[in-house]
């Protein structure tokens, strides 16, 4: 549906565009985290692209599929003007789940990046306020990761103010 977006990205990034996928009416571009901010800025500011609306950001944990690298952070963008959509995917290694935040470009990603951090432990460099959003601060672990068992118990939290 938005094939010309992928072509424009290919032209702009050249080799740095690792892969593209088009399936089920979705267009996806896989890029490295070093090129993320450049690609995102191009998508937002270029008048042909004009991706002004952030849709969602989340992460896929590929541990159970046995694929490397383990994490894939997905950013979905939409253009109100041209009515096309695109998904950016950034692969991340298990030992080094850090990538630049896109909140400075689109404030709508603020809470969703916090949610991705909360659930998967992905660090977003440059996020104004990266802390847990759904879970309490003393929570141990990242629950949506595939090696977090569903019935795991959490340690009890001391309430020092009640002594």
């Amino acid at each position: 549906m938005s094939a010309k977006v992928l072509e424009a990205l290919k032209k702009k990034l050249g080799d740095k565009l690792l892969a593209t996928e088009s399936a089920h009416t979705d267009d996806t571009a896989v890029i490295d985290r070093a090129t993320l901010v450049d690609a995102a800025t191009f998508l937002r500011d270029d008048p042909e692209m004009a991706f002004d609306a952030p849709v969602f950001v989340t992460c896929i944990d590929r541990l159970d599929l046995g694929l490397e690298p383990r994490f894939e952070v997905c950013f979905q963008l939409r253009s109100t003007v041209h009515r096309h959509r695109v998904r950016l995917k950034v692969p991340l290694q298990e030992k080094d789940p850090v990538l630049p935040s896109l909140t400075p470009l689109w404030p709508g990603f603020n809470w969703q990046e916090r949610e991705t951090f909360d659930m998967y432990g992905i660090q977003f460099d440059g996020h104004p306020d990266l802390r847990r959003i759904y879970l309490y601060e003393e929570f141990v672990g990242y629950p949506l990761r595939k090696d977090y068992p569903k019935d795991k118990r959490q340690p009890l939290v001391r309430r020092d103010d009640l002594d």
Partner: protein
Amino acid sequence: MADTKTLVLGHKNAEDFDRDEPIPNELMTINMGPSHPAMHGTVRIVLTVDGERVEAADVQPGYLHRCFEKEAEYATYTQIFPYTDRLNYVSPMLNNVGFAMAVEKLLDLTDQIPERAEYIRVLVGEISRITDHLTCVGASVMELGAFTAFLYALKAREWFYELLEELSGARLTHAYVRVGGVVKDLTPDFKERLSHILDKLEPVIVEMEGLLTENKVFYDRMVDVGPFTAEDAIAHGLTGPVLRACGVDYDVRKDFPYSVYDRFEFDVPVGTRGDCYDRYLVRVFELRQSIRILRQAMQQIPEGPVVIDDPRVALPQKKSTYNTIEAMIRHFKHIMDGIRVPAGEAYTFIEGGNGELGFFIKSDGSGRPYKCYVRSPSFVQLSSVSKTMHGHLISDIVPIFGMINMIGGECDK
């Protein structure tokens, strides 16, 4: 009896009150919620206020987090429908429809859903939209003090819930939609009853508007409260009535038409100032448009099957299940293994009651999703609230909060 003047601020003379020195003050941190009548569905706001004026607000959702995504990874696709009901629990049919469409997209069955099933989905979806808007408007104005309008709205909403209860068995938690259609056909007198209810609803909307729209008190509390410019709204990811109130004409049903929405005539209301008053007007207008869609759908709905005739997706008839081994095995595998969805990932979005409700599903070829992410519009809208609240009084938090229609189940998942 002590002199009143002496008690105030330690000053002894009335003239002292006319001095220009500011009253010494400091910022105060107040906690609002999570257990608070105005914090719909448990949200906590840690306010830093200067007197009555909000300087900073740290909105903390998550008190209703029920791990939808983790549960979805351990349940078959059909088992996830009850979970989706509990996302946006005032418009549950819309969540059901969104999820079903997402799975059908991965199965490449989107154009093979029987027409009658599509129309039924539109009918129940628009009914859910009406209940969503009635709840939002009703509950918000109650918090502003307009109890009568609240009761009118909820009484009207109850008619719809009764109708859906006849259809699916439950007022709110329907689990009525399935992958490939809906679970069973409409009740025989559904169209008559719906028609009758819509005829009753229209005067109720007029009554409600009569109490609110031109009411000076309501107007003063809502106009210019929490405004958003169009560019800011888009950059914040807002969608739905909140975005349309800012002047941006974006409605998924018109811009990326799905199901049979392209066969109906309806208008999309767009506001000007983006404040709470515009959001209220947009919602009321949309109520009328939903009624329009419902009337057209009732006229156009054809006869036919309500579930796709594909053995990989649909359960067999109970009669053959109990009497033939083939249907028994098929029924068994459907329930136990789940619908085998080929590996892939897709993002499907519909116009939910609050905005763009999307499901991002990644499947690995088995009967359970590998990942099922919900793009919930309430979550995104709630993130913009702290910006809107800045500079307003504490009492303005109530209409701001009410008019973004933050449903706890959808926001916290």
